[in-house]
Structures are given as structure tokens and as C-alpha cells.
């Protein structure tokens, strides 16, 4: 009996840690973007949504942006009507935290195309989705189901050209648009650990 209880709690804890599960509805969240606007995930129901966990100084993210690969993906997908949400869960005390003004400047400097950059310095959204690293990507279907959770591509390096790698997000979106099932729905995310407020 005691074993059963322990097991149950362990698995609950485990599943709670992975509050999102591919194939299930993606949990709704509320956040504030760097322009002060309140964003709900449910605002975008009916559209394909890509969520990117972001850290301005993480070498892995930086490599994607410095090479321009990430901006290219964002622009290409935006042209297809995809919603792109950047979630920055770095806590306020950390070096890599960006105030809304700094973030707006960075968005312009780096030529980022995104529907919204959400300031998640409390870490609520990050914890809700079990985000572990930056970059960590999520793709949500038009009906709100999570279809992809994991790394942006199969090349966990902080240098080199990401365009040479297989981009799981692009592939998943293409499959969704073509009405096909998403083949690779879960991979191990790579990158820097998220600087949560702990």
C-alpha cells in the first residue's frame, strides 16, 4: 500500500514536471509582452503557434541569431501566418534579464520577427511548459494541441551554421500545413539552463 502511494506521488510529481504532453492540449497561459500588452495563448486559437524560449546571452541562442538562421525561420513562418511567441523566462536579478526598453531595442537590432516577446521573468510560463533550456521549442496546432516539444534542430552546437541542420520546427509546421501527422514530435532540447527565479 505504502509503495503504491509513493509510486503514485512520484509519477504525479513526474508528470507535473512535464505538465505538457505531446498530443494533449497545450495549457493556456497569460503573460505581458515587452510593449505592455497582455497576451493569452488562447488569443491565437485557430492558428499554428510556435513558442521559443529565449535568453539574450546564451551562446546557443546567440549562434542562431548571429548567423541569421533564427530570423530567417521566423520571417518565413510569419509569411505563412504562423504565430511566433518568444518567452524570456530569465529572472530579474540575472545578468541576462532585459527590461522592456532593452528588449525592444534588442528586437530591433537583431531584426527579430515575432508576434510577441513575452517577459516571463517570474518563470511561470517556463515552469508550466517544463522549459529547461534555451532554445526550447513548442509547436501548437490550430486546435490547440501540442504537436512538437523539444530542440529546434538536431545540431546542439553553440557555433556553426544552423541552416545545415535538420530544423524540427520548420518540418513540424510544414507537416501541419500539408495536413500530415508530425513525425518527430519530441526531442531532447539543448542549450543553456534557464535562469529561473529560484
Amino acid at each position, binding site marked *: 500500500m505504502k509503495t503504491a502511494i509513493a509510486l503514485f506521488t512520484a509519477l504525479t510529481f513526474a508528470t507535473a514536471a512535464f505538465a505538457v504532453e505531446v498530443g494533449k492540449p497545450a495549457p493556456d497561459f497569460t503573460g505581458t509582452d515587452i510593449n505592455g500588452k497582455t497576451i493569452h495563448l488562447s488569443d491565437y486559437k485557430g492558428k499554428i503557434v510556435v513558442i521559443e524560449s529565449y535568453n539574450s546571452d546564451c551562446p546557443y541562442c546567440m549562434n542562431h541569431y548571429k548567423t541569421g538562421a533564427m530570423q530567417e525561420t521566423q520571417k518565413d513562418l510569419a509569411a505563412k501566418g504562423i504565430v511566433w511567441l518568444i518567452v524570456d523566462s530569465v529572472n530579474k536579478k540575472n545578468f541576462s534579464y532585459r527590461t522592456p526598453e532593452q528588449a525592444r531595442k534588442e528586437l530591433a537590432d537583431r531584426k527579430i520577427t515575432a508576434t510577441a516577446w513575452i517577459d516571463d521573468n517570474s518563470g511561470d510560463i517556463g515552469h508550466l511548459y517544463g522549459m529547461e533550456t534555451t532554445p526550447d521549442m513548442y509547436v501548437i496546432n490550430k486546435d490547440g494541441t501540442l504537436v512538437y516539444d523539444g530542440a529546434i534542430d538536431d545540431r546542439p552546437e553553440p557555433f556553426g551554421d544552423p541552416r545545415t541542420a535538420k530544423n524540427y520546427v520548420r518540418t513540424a509546421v510544414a507537416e501541419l500545413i500539408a495536413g500530415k501527422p508530425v513525425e518527430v514530435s519530441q526531442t531532447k532540447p539543448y542549450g543553456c539552463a534557464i*535562469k529561473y527565479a529560484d
Partner: protein
Amino acid sequence: MRRIVFLFSACLCLAISSRAQPALPSIGGGFSSAHHTQVKLLLSADTAKPGDTIYAGVDLKMEPGWHTYWKNPGAAGMATEIKWQLPPGISADEIQWPLPEKFPPIEVTTYGYTNEVMLIVPLTLASNLPSGEIDLKANVSWLECKDVCIPANQDVEAKLKIGNEAKNSADAATIESWKSKIPRRDENWAIRAQWEKQAGGDVRSLIIEGTVLRQTKIVRIDTADFFPDASDNFEIQAATEKVPNTNALFCLRKIVKKFSGNWPKEISGIVTLEGSIGHENIEVNLPVVGQSSVGETTSAPDSSSESRTGVAPVSNLIEKNAETGATPVLPLMLLYAFIGGLILNIMPCVLPVIALKILGFVSEARSSPRRVRALGGIYAVGVLFSFLVLAAIVIGVEAAGHQAGWGMQFGSPVFLVCLTTLVTLVALNLFGVFEATLGGRTLDAAGNLAARHGASGAFFNGVLATTLATPCTAPFLAPALGFAFSQTAFTIVSIFLTVGLGLASPYVLLSWNPAWLKFLPKPGAWMEKFKIAMGFPMLATVVWLFSVATSDYGSRVFWLGVFLVVLAFAAWIFGEFVQRGRKRKGIAFTIILILLAGGYVYALEDKLHWREMIDETDTTSLAEPSGGIDWQPWSPEAVAQARAAGKPVLVDFTASWCVTCNAIVKPALENASVSAKLKEMNAVALLADYTRTPPLITDEISKFGGAGVPLVLVYPKNPGAAAMVLPQPSPLQLPSGYEKIVLDALDRAAH
């Protein structure tokens, strides 16, 4: 056009980032991007022979707060990589990683290193390599993180000479000590992994449990953990949960998350254990068997798993142990302790003190039986008191986190010098050079002072008997002590006191039975002669202690001899002028003080440097190829290497201060028939020198249920079979008798 611009800027960024220069744009903002890690390449040899394997140590020294990553970085991060540029004929093996730490937070746990880590890489040299000097180069790339992460890389190089004679480099010792921190396989442990439940979803819990194969003493595991190797299709989460399980020594639950494909059939990683065995890090490769409820002993999985890991399933072993009844309990151990203490009385170490005891009895026998009983009791108190002190030392050592060993105080040079001085004084006292009374007055009122002399003398005899007993072990004593060392303080104290009772019991019994005293000769003039004669065995003990000190001090030990002579001279002046003299006592005292102070400052401190041992040279003093055996120095790697080659291994744990080792075991091993047998079996002979009680050897001895030396192991030819522990030599056993035991074990090892 845009594409070209992009590519160009990408190349530029590539060039910049791969150099990790400060030229990063202000996005990196403000902090110095110089490396926070210093990387060096060290080699274990200055010169190596073609065909040899040497070890390269890639040393990463991180600034405080910065860390680098393990081969499995965990939820985030990047493992350090080494890209070798080696001349032809040299090949580098996989990196051997020391055990990492876990970094929080728990949701994003990573594995890595802080402060410093040395990654070990075996380099194999081709046998046809030409002589000369070669350049070994490598590019080391890593990710260093504190609040931010910075990828970095650095070129390192080292030079190596190829020649006819191998020569270690100055870094060989450091490399060796880092090598010893690398987890290895351990056949003494039976460990297995199984799923706890049927698969459902992409998260599943895994149970890892294990027990020790040879359970000759109680092993207690306080903490256990599992560090998984990296894998693409699944992730073993960092959180570890301890699971109560009466059938295994440790049992943990890990959560496994699957990304793609099927659930893994096999997991690999490091099991880390901490407990009565000290620290142990075991490399494991475990097939994952189907689920069962935790705590049940399931029927054995198919035998393929057994041959795979070379180890029987945990449940089988536990049943086997229950059959042989090899689970010791405290009362049994106490019985062993008592018998062991009893036998100690006839071990060569304690015999000189016996003579004193007999003397004491005879001189007291003329007084009242009550007096005799009291003295017997005081002797016992002296013994028990000393054992209490020993127990306290063991408890203290273990509380400090080190492994304790029986006889370990002989590894301390200060102890050795003090004991040698003490025994010298006892010998001089027996020779009649001075009297050992507390009051300074000699035998005036025979009744009173003899009584006082008797009491303090009896106590002191008890202490001396215990101190001299420690370099000896006896049968029954070894398992009792081995058991004690792994237990609670209370158990340690009770077992030690029981040994003391065993040691003191003959005299207590004798003193309680005055009838037996009738068999002792009547006191007379012979007593004086007997007393002087007993000084000589004491002197022999001094010589033995002196020779032990030689291994600590080398040729400096000459000054210890000088100090002892000065001491003897001072003792004579004390006896002659202070005790027996009438006038000029003051001057005599002054001279004595000058002699002692001068002897201490000049001989002990200045010349002998009595607190420092000489640098440990190789163990040639112990490992002289006598009897034709080619002793190699023991190390866990040497054992593993020999076993991997399918050779049986003979290991002799010995120390220069260990009387049983040198009197019985050494002559038994180093003779023609044993060496012939070893050659015939193509066996490897390893010598583990415990003289300075190095912790690595203390740990190893405790793994086999021993408390100290001697310990002789025979590893059979079959790499999967467990080691055979040879029984302790009994006191009356001649070397020839022990030799038979060794030959018999070697016979069994050949199959």
C-alpha cells in the same frame, strides 16, 4: 546577394565565436570574455617505449563559480571535447571522466565540474615507433558557465620522447591520483535495473538496486545515486528517490523520459555509493528487465543477463547468502572478539609483556590474595582503558570521513618514535638502570611503595600490552574488527572492549585463583636476574620498531638511534644520581634536562625531522624479488588489467610494521613452490604496501571484510569470478602450513 551577405557574416561570426575572443558585440555586454578556464595538457611519462600505453591528463582549472560539463552534461550544457592531432603511430582512446557533481536546479540538473578536473586519455604507442621526440597536440573545446555560458576552446600541446627506457614525468603522480577518481567496474557488486511498471505515456519509473556479492561483514550504504550516460532517445532525470528495500543494500528510483523509439533495453552510467565502505563509484552497464514490485525477490531472468554483466541477479545472491548463513550478528562477533583477544596473548608482539606480567605476579604472590586480585584487576583496567582509547581513535577517524584500519597508528612516524622511546625506557628499567616509581623514592617501605609500584606498574603493563598488540592480528580478530569498523560507535566500543577482556582474561583468572600461584616459583634472587633477562626481549622490540622507522625515515633513522643513546645516558644519570644518589641531585637534574632537550632539538627535530616521513620511493624494500616472485605494485588498474588478460592475480597486503605479515605470510609466499606455481599459471603478483596506511588501500581492505594486514587475495583466472580471501594465519601456524593454503587457493584459481 542576400544569401552571400548572410554567408559572409555567418563566416565572420563563426570565426569570431570559435575564437571566443572579447570581440563579441555588446549583446554579451560588459563582462570579460577571456577564458574563465585554464587548460593544460600533462603526460604521465617524459620518455616512453614503443608499444607502451601512457596517460594524458587534460587539466581544466575553472575560476570560482564557473563550471564545465561531464560527458553527459545533463539537461543543458555541452560536454568538453578533445580533438587530437597526433603523429602517426599514436592513438588516443576515449576520455575517462572523473565522477562529476550535480548542479541545481532540480528541473534543469546538469552534471559537471567546479574548480578543477583532469580528464584522462590513454594514449597507445605503436610498437614500431621510431625513437625521438614527438609533439602531441590537441584542441580542447568546452562550455563554461556561471550566470552566463561561454563556449571556448584552446590548443594545447606536450612533448614526448620515445626511447628504450620508460621514464615517468613529474606529473605522473597527479595523473595517477585523478585516475583513481575515475569510476570503474566492480565485480563485488551485483546491481540490476528494472522497470517499476508497464509503460504508459512517455514517462516511466526505473528501479536500480544492488547488493554486495561477498557478504563477510555487514555493509551499510548511507547514500546511493546514479549518474546516467547521455542518450538521444531518452533521458534519465536527475532526481533520485531512495526506496526502502530489505533485499538489497541500496535501491533507488529514477524517472525516465522517452523522446522517440522504444524504451531502452539497457542503461549505462555510474552508481555512486557512500557508507561503511567509504566512497565507491561503479561503472555499470545494466540490461533493464521487466517490471516487478519493489521488494520482492523475483525469479532470475534468463541466464543471458548473467553472462552479459558477469554477475548473478541480486535476488539469487541474497538467497545464497541466507543459505550459507554468512550474515554475522553482534553476539557472534563479540565471541570472535573475545577469542581473538585471548589468542593475542601468545602472538609474538605481546610475549615480552607476558614476561613482565609473570614477574609481577611472582613478586606480588607473597602479599595477600586480595592484593593479587586487585593487581590483576588493575592490569585489566589498563588493557580496557587502552582499548577504549583505540576505539575512540577509530570513531574519530571514521567521523572525519576516513576509513580506519587496525594498526594504522603505526603509519604515523610520531607515534613510532614515541613508542620506540617508551620501549627503550622500559628495557632500561628492566636492566636496572633506573627505577620506575612515581614518588622518586626507591624501595624503602617495601609494603607501601611496592604496593603503589604494583598498582601503577600493573596499569602500565596493561597499556603497554595493548599498544604492542596492535601490529599483530589473530584469527577471529580480523572478522570481528572488520565488522566493528563498519558499525555504530556503540558497537565499535563494545567489540574493542571485548577484545580487551580476552587479552586480559588469563591474568584476571590467574589472579583470582591463588591456588594456581603455587605453581609459580618462590620469589628469590633469581627474580633480579629474570628481570634483567626480560630486558632483552624488550630490546628486541626496540630493534624491530627501529627497523620499521627505517621505512619512514630512510637513512635519517641514524639520528633516532643517537637520540636513544642520549636518552639511555640521561636515564642512567637519573638512576645513578637522582634516585640512588644523595647529593648533587640538582646538578644531575639539570644535566638530564640538557641532555633530553638537546637530544630532542638536535637529534629529533633538526636531524631526524621526526614528524616528516621521507618521500615514498617504490616499495622495493618490501617487494624484493625474493623467492623468484616478481612483485608488481598493487593498484586497482593493475588488477583490472591482469584480469582482463585472463590471468589469475595474487595480491599481498602487507606492512613493514606488521609482525604476522613478515613472520608467517612473507616466508610462506616467497618460496620456490609458490613462485613456480605462479609462473606456471602465468599469474600476476601484486604487493599492496600498507606501511603508511594509504586510504586507497584501507578502503580496498575493508571491501573484503578485513580490518588490517595481513590480507592475501587470489583472483581466479575467470574474470567473472569473485576473489578468494585467504584465511588469517593462526599464531602457531608455521609458514609451511600457510604455504599449503596459498598453493591450494592458487590451484582453485586456475579453473
